[in-house]
């Protein structure tokens, strides 16, 4: 039972984390310069973005729930189960982030989820 509660926590926190991370990074704009100094100043700016702050908190919840999960269940269960987050994330990518989620993306997500079911057997 505990492991299913942890799975649910990982899924919800990952969804919030990924969507907010995407919103924050989009607000910041595309990263072009990957020299150490430029990365440093970009990290400084990104760390002050409120979406990125929410995302980091959500990712921390996801991370600690995941750590607890892998301490009571095998990785072959814990890692693929978190893939269920693909469904709410794809729905929000379309509804909130206004991405063009065409049939190939939905079919890809479908294949991956069925694949994840088999990979846990």
């Amino acid at each position: 039972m505990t492991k299913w509660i942890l799975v649910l926590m990982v899924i919800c926190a990952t969804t919030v984390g990924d969507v907010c991370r995407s919103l924050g990074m989009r607000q910041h704009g595309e990263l072009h310069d990957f020299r150490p100094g430029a990365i440093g100043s970009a990290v400084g700016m990104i760390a002050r973005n409120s979406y990125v702050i929410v995302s980091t908190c959500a990712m921390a919840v996801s991370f600690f729930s995941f750590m607890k999960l892998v301490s009571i269940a095998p990785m072959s269960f814990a890692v693929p189960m978190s893939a269920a987050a693909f469904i709410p994330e794809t729905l929000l990518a379309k509804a909130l982030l206004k991405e063009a989620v065409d049939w190939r993306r939905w079919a890809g997500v479908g294949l991956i989820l069925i694949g994840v079911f088999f990979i846990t057997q």
Partner: protein
Amino acid sequence: MNSSRAGGTRSPARSLTYNSNLRKTRLFAVLTILSNVAGNSALTKGMQQLGDIGNSPLALIAALFHPWVALGVALLIVWTLTHMALLSWADLSYVMPVTAISYVVTAFAARLLLNENISFARWTGIVLITLGVMLVGRTQVNTT
């Protein structure tokens, strides 16, 4: 319908930008996938060595000082940074399924490092996930 990356109407200049963007996307996708799998594997190895640590937050923080857990956390920080960079130009509905190939890499890592078996069912899953990733990989990196 969205234009595929083989669209023939692109000007040479746009095509050049497009190709360099695709190379950058592929490089960061590979870095994201490898740091994710290596980070999760190290973390799992550490947590399995520690056993059930109970529910106290202090025990979780103490676990961070275990060498394998610490390595896992360091690799997951690399994953965070490369994943954020990728999302600064690529769609979430592109990044998420494409980086799902990490589940396949994880299955092979589990086989090699943790001696978990790859059953027939698991091979089926590996094939399906790979097909799904290939399908999404054929869509445009950015649609917004």
